Each structure stands twice: as C-alpha cells, then as structure tokens.
C-alpha cells in the first residue's frame, strides 16, 4: 500500500512543480545554473565512461567474432548500435541517476531539514516549483546533448581501440559504422534520454523534498533516490523499447 501513498504524493508534488512560476526571469536564470550544474559538470564523467565503453565493446566483439565466415565490419556495427541503442541512453542514464540524483536529493533534503524550504514557503514562494522545475527543465534540455556526445565519443573510443590494438583493421570498423544505419535508432535513444532525464531529476527531488529529520535522513533520501531512479530507468527502458522498437 505504501507504493500508492508515494505515487499519490509524487503526483501532487508534480502538480505543485508545474504550477505557474512566480517570476519567469528568476526561473530562467535558475535553469541556466542547473544546466551548468547538472549537465556541463557531468560532461567529464560521460566522456570518460563512453570512450572506455566504446573501446571495450569493440575489443570484446572482435575477440568473440573469430569465425572467418563472419565479416569483420560487424565489429563496427556492433559498437555503433550498442552505443546508440543502449549505452548512451540507458547506461549513461544510470550513471547520471547516481551522480545527479544523489546531488539533487541531498541538496533539497538539506534545504528541508535546515528549514530553508519553510523559509521559501513563508515568503509565499512555491518552493516545489522554484527548486524542482528548473532542474527538470535543465535536464530535459541538456541530457540529449550528453547522449549525442556519448554516442560520438563512444564510437570514437572503439576506433581508437582498433587503431591501437589492431584487433580489426580500422577501415573495417569504419565500414561497420556505415553499414545498415537506421536513423530512427538515434531518435529512439533521444526519446529514452528525455524520459530518463525526467526520472533522474523528479524522483530524487521528490525524495529530497519529503526528507524529515536530520543529516541521517538526508543520506537515506539520497540513497533511496538513486535506487528508485535506477529501477525506474530500467523499467522504462523495457517499456520504451517494446513501444518504440517492437
């Protein structure tokens, strides 16, 4: 029964979040700040992980495709499709759920336990909207760019791996990248990223907003935020894949 309680409270919070903003100018400034905090600051980790994952996918594929009947360009195709379909959206989503999600939950949770949210409410500010809406909008705007960067860098990582290790000839890898490319895969990946961006920001914000107690509870909220966001990302990954690709 607790799930219905949380679902109802989450829905009511979202209704508050999407209420008309008090002063659009201030919200706009907040969105820019959040884009920097949630998006630009995550660029480093996204690039590093994508490069290495692209390289590993390429090397593992090449070592497992030893049958001479299987063309070598399939390694490039595998790396490309793995990066576009799954890694850049879902795995990067899970990584951001850990990094950004815990950050959001602990930030809002700390504001709750130190009465900063009460201070906003007493001033007559819609605290839910003021604190959460800019984060959601920022993530919806910046995460698709992170996704695209992850795709490009990951495929590049695979290329670097082929050049350095000589696992397959680089021209075969490039052939594979170009072979049977389906542009909708990129759209599918971007749709998933937008949905995951909403989960990554709204679920941790919910956990942070309803933190009661002290530092210990802030920590618990942060952990819950990461766990629930990750589970929801995996669940929506299945649903969206069935809806968009089946």
């Amino acid at each position, binding site marked *: 029964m607790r799930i219905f309680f949380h679902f109802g409270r989450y829905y009511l919070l979202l209704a508050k979040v999407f209420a008309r903003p008090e002063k659009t100018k201030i919200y706009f400034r907040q969105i820019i700040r959040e884009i920097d905090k949630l998006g630009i600051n995550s660029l480093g980790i996204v690039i590093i992980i994508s490069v290495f994952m692209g390289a590993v996918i390429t090397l593992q594929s090449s070592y497992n495709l030893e049958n001479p009947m299987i063309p070598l360009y399939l390694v490039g195709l595998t790396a490309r499709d793995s990066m576009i379909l799954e890694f850049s959206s879902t795995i990067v989503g899970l990584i951001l759920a850990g990094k950004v999600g815990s950050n959001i939950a602990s930030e809002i949770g700390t*504001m709750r336990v130190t009465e*900063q949210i009460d201070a906003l409410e007493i*001033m007559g500010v819609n605290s839910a909207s003021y604190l959460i809406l800019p984060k959601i909008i920022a993530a919806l705007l910046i995460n698709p760019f992170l996704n695209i960067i992850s795709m490009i860098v990951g495929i590049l990582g695979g290329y670097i791996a082929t050049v350095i290790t000589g696992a397959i000839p680089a021209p075969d890898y490039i052939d594979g990248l170009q072979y049977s490319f389906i542009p909708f895969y990129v759209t599918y990946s971007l749709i998933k990223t937008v949905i995951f961006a909403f989960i990554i920001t709204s679920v941790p914000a919910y956990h942070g907003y309803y933190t009661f107690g002290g530092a210990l509870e802030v920590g618990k909220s942060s952990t819950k935020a990461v766990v629930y966001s990750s589970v929801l990302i995996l669940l929506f990954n299945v649903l969206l894949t069935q809806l968009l690709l089946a």
Partner: protein
Amino acid sequence: MIELIGVHKSFGENHVLKGVSTVFNQGKVNMIIGQSGSGKTVLLKSIIGLHEIDEGQIIYDNRVFSEMNNKKRKSIRKEIGMVFQGGALFDSATVEENVMYPLEMFTKMTEEERLERANFCLKRVNIENANKRFPAEISGGMQKRVAIARAIVLNPRYLFCDEPNSGLDPKTAIVIDNLIKELTQEFNTTTVINTHDMNSVAEIGDSIVYVHKGEKWWEGSSKEILLSDNNELNDFVFASDLMKKIKNSGF
C-alpha cells in the same frame, strides 16, 4: 494584531494544541514560552501556516488566515518576516543575495534599488563588509542577524522569531534581543517570539503566553510572570538555581 481562537492541532493520535486562544498585539514583543515538547513550535508554525490547524481560527488584522486557500494566503505571507532557529539562510547564496531574495521575488525594484535596500537592512542589523560572504563563512550570531535583515527587508507587518537566541553566547543573545525589540518599535510590527530563554523574556517581553502540554496555561506581562502563583509556570521560570536565588532574594 494576530488573534488565535480555540486553535487545535493533532498529529495522528497526538493532540498537540488543545484550544489555544490569545491575542498578539501590534508594536509589542509577544512571547510564547514553554518547556521543550509543550507545543510552542507547533503553535508558531500553525500561526504562519506551515501546519494546517484542525479546529479554531487564526486572524491577521480581521483577515481569517486559517480559512484562506494558499493563493489568498500569499498576500498575507508577503507581510510576514520570519527568523528561523537556525537562520535558514540559503547556503548557495551570499549574504547580500539572501537579503535581496524577497525583493527580487516580490518587487519590481531595479538591481541598484535592491542593493541599496539590502545594504540598509544589513547596516540596520550591524552587518558590514560581509555582503559577498556565504552563510557558512560567517558566525552563528551574524547568521541570525542576516536572517533578521532578510525578514525585515520587505517591511513586514508581522515578525516571527523561532528561538532567536538558541546557540548564541549571552552577549550576542542580548544584542539579538535588543535588535528585535528596536525593530518592533521602529516598524510597529506585531512580533511573536518563541523562546525558553528567561533572560529574553525579562529583557524584551511585553506580553507572555505560557504554553503547557498544548494549552495556554498562563498569560501576562514580563513583570507579572515573576509574581505569578501558577505552580507549573513557577516550575518553568524558576527552574535554575540562579532564578531560585533571585526569587528568594525578593527580586
């Protein structure tokens, strides 16, 4: 003036406020005192609308706050200044930004006007050369004073303070007390302070409400409190050896 009529508040089975009725007058420092767990913080949070009351009325100058929806309450909330126990300053904003925040949110002032008003308020609470510092970089006493500056920046009609002296040394506590008293008189606010600091009560309290087990147990002035024959109140007021000695010496 703020009037409370038969205010009740429960959290599940726990009946915290049991029909509290009183009046907080304009231009006076009204104090709510009581032991920890007596319900005074719940009472203060109910008055400002952070808790919804179950029964009774809260009236701000003939406006029934407790029966208003959130939209209507906004107009009254803009007349309220609140100083929280821990200051509740925004960590990510500087001292100056904290004080300017209500102006930015609710007025059409230009950047220069906002800065001028914020500097005036900061000067009024004796904070200078700390505009660009963050809350974590200033002392507890300074944080309280910045919180007071933020609370008065919109010229509030009602000023609420939740244990403004907690965690402060006696000298700084007196500075904060005197500041609140001065501001109350200067801006003619209805000031309500939640405290269990008897020194504050004696120094600046005009009207005192003693809350015991969720009920208004006693009401009177800071002079009357020392002469009261109410047993529970006396147990609270003269709990320390120092206060007992003062009482035995005949004040």
